[in-house]
């Protein structure tokens, strides 16, 4: 039977309509997914079911079970929330009270909605944590959120959302910012809840994530539903160009050099060195300790001109430390990094300074890598002139165009740009000194899949036109397979497996690699 029924839903804030004409139904034991980019209105739509939009909600029908949510009183809505509708909000890392043990968080909803005694509540909270896949649940229940990993926090949040066995669970980007295997575990958990009869409304920007669970997809763009239908149909025969773009943007299982957006590929420039066997960057026996913890141990690799070396691993695998060693932001305790066949990590910083323009970097958080006082134009002029000038010049405009930024953005501060634009500015700054190598540390991890596709295509274009070599660091196997020629799989600071990307993917030698590959979300 139909548990949730939404017809012609519209939400507006102070006269501005942000969502309109949204229809969907959810049945018990069914998972429906709202998919779209940030700002498409999917979170607001989900919050309308909870009466938590903060705006004004209008609908021809907005029903949960036998309650008309349009006319439900605040106290009726309060009783629904938690008891009938569980909500896992975006950002598990901040949604838990940092000062309280996670078990207490779960006991809260039991205390408010049930008549269980204190001891029973405690026992039940531990049961729920175990059910949500938290190992050693009794000990974990007594820990505060900062003592738990991201995956465990997300599980704790889900445990509190399902504490009262709600009929509907709303999960807003439940796996964003989680490692691949952790993400797979959370999706498994949601799947088992669905199979046990819970209806799930799943919200994500990533079609690959939802396609595993959802039987029905609602694709949203700019506050409207552009396409809606059974998941298999939508994925196999997308009718709307926007859906097609979203599907095309998923990098998983897409061969290297295949385009993720409909922009044509750039032609290689004749005056730049092309891909070759020349090694531009090499590392041997790198080791780095922080106190008693060995962050990186015995890591070695060689990066060829015009090639991409992917380093994939989960949080704590030491991949970012490798990036910092390569950029000479850390000094290795053992081993050496050589740049263009010459010493690099053994130099003193003043010796290194004149060679620094040969190697650039882009980061996951592009915004914080910009001086907040500077405009885009000033940042790029500074990078082009080697720090001597911040005045606008024709070169700045040319540079902005080369990364697909409108010249009119030069007078803006990066803070006011979108995430994708910020990363383009970071890329422009990095290529301004004409480096041979770019170190890319999770450059697309905080971007929507569709924006990620644009940035990946841009990096691909620049590699071809400038002959750049990339050291590409990510936790995302789909992205790394699409981008790299060679691959390094890291775990606990060591290289677990290395080789040409395709052979690692087709014949993984290590169980961990196999588990990683299997856990990467795929379409369909």
């Amino acid at each position, binding site marked *: 039977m139909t548990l949730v029924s939404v017809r012609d839903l519209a939400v507006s804030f102070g006269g501005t309509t942000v969502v309109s004409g949204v229809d969907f139904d959810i049945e018990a034991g069914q998972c429906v997914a709202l998919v779209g980019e940030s700002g498409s209105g999917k979170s607001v739509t989900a919050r309308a079911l909870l009466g938590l939009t903060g705006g004004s909600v209008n609908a021809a029908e907005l029903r949960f079970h036998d309650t008309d949510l349009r006319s439900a009183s605040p106290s009726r809505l309060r009783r629904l929330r938690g008891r009938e509708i569980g909500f896992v909000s975006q950002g598990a890392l901040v949604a838990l009270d940092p000062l309280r043990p996670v078990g207490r968080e779960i006991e809260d909803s039991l205390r408010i909605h049930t008549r269980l005694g204190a001891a029973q509540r405690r026992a039940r909270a531990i049961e729920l944590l175990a059910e949500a896949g938290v190992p050693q649940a009794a000990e974990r229940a007594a820990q505060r959120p900062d003592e738990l990993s991201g995956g465990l926090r997300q599980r704790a949040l889900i445990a509190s959302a399902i504490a009262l066995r709600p009929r509907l669970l709303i999960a807003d980007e439940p796996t964003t910012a989680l490692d691949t295997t952790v993400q797979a575990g959370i999706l498994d958990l949601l799947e088992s809840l669905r199979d046990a009869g819970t209806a799930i409304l799943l919200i994500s920007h990533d079609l690959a994530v939802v396609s595993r669970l959802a039987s029905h997809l609602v694709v949203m763009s700019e506050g409207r539903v552009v396409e809606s239908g059974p998941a298999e149909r939508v994925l196999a025969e997308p009718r709307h160009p926007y859906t097609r773009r979203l599907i095309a943007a998923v990098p998983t299982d897409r061969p290297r050099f295949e385009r993720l957006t409909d922009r044509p590929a750039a032609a290689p420039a004749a005056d730049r060195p092309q891909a070759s066997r020349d090694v531009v960057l090499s590392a041997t026996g790198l080791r780095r300790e922080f106190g008693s913890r060995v962050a990186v141990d015995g890591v070695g690799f060689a990066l060829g001109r015009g090639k991409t070396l992917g380093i994939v691993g989960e949080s704590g695998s030491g991949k970012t430390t490798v990036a910092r060693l390569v950029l000479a932001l850390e000094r290795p305790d053992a081993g050496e990094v050589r740049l263009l066949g010459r010493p690099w990590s053994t130099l003193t910083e003043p010796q290194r300074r004149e060679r*620094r323009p040969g190697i650039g970097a882009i980061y996951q958080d592009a915004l914080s890598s910009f001086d907040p006082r500077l405009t885009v134009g000033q940042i790029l002029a500074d990078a082009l002139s080697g720090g001597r000038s911040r005045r606008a010049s024709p070169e700045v405009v040319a540079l902005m165009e080369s990364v697909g930024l409108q010249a009119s953005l030069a007078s803006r501060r990066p803070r006011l740009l979108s995430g994708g634009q910020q990363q383009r500015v970071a890329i422009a700054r990095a290529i301004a000194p004409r480096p041979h190598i770019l170190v890319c540390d999770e450059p697309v991890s905080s971007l929507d899949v569709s924006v990620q596709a644009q940035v990946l295509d841009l990096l691909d274009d620049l590699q071809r036109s400038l002959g750049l070599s990339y050291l590409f660091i990510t936790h995302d196997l789909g992205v790394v397979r699409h981008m790299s020629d060679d691959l390094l799989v890291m775990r606990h600071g060591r290289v677990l497996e290395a080789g040409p990307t395709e052979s690692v993917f087709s014949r993984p030698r290590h169980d961990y690699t196999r588990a990683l590959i299997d856990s990467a979300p795929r379409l369909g």
Partner: protein
Amino acid sequence: MSRPAVIVAAAVLAFLVFAALFPGVIAPGDPLAIHPLDSFRAPSFAHPFGTDESGRDIFTRIIHGTGASLTIGLSATAIGVGLALILGLLSGLGPRWLDFGTTRFLEVLFAFPGLLLALLFIVIYGPGVVTSTIAVGLATAPGYARIIRSQVRVVRRAPYLEAALVLGRSPAHRLVRHLLPNVVGSLFVLVTLGIGQSIVWASSLSYLGLGAVPPAAEWGAMLSAGRTYLGSFWWMTFFPGLFIVLAAVGTTLLGRGIQQGTRLR
């Protein structure tokens, strides 16, 4: 903070600055000229703010005293911020032992009320306009220094400084072009707020007879001179006090206005 309040504050300050630069234009008389026959006159057309015990025109004296008061306020703040910048940069950028030393030193200074610190300085070096200015500067420095130190420590770890290092910028370039502007930028508002405070403190010292001394036309000193006649001739203390308040409130409001403006940008 509403826009009108900021505009009014700016207008008041503009008037005060003008008065400081061209006192003769607003009040053409001599602030020190004595007219014993006209002593203790209540405010009137001839003497809008009244006259004092020697028959000097209070309006003229206040206008001519603006320069002294504003100069003391500005110089004291400049001394305080300058000293604080050195201390803050030393402890924010220097090795750990230096940070430890500077911070403990600041904590000792903090243990004394600012005014007491200023009094101590004056006791050692003797009263006067210059010593009281330096004294106020010294007394305000620890507060600024602590803020600068924490700002420096935040900014030096900012990813954009690392990004500048990766781009091959020298330590001097990173310090001068990235670190300092970002530290000072956040300080600008505090300094504006601090000027008002410095004016009040400098006036307080003059009032206690430790700064500018009567018959000099300085607001605090005039306030002090009027103290004896507080019961009978209110205008002698009211108008100098009013101008101290105007200057302090004006700079504070303007500082808050700028603060909010920068937050919006």
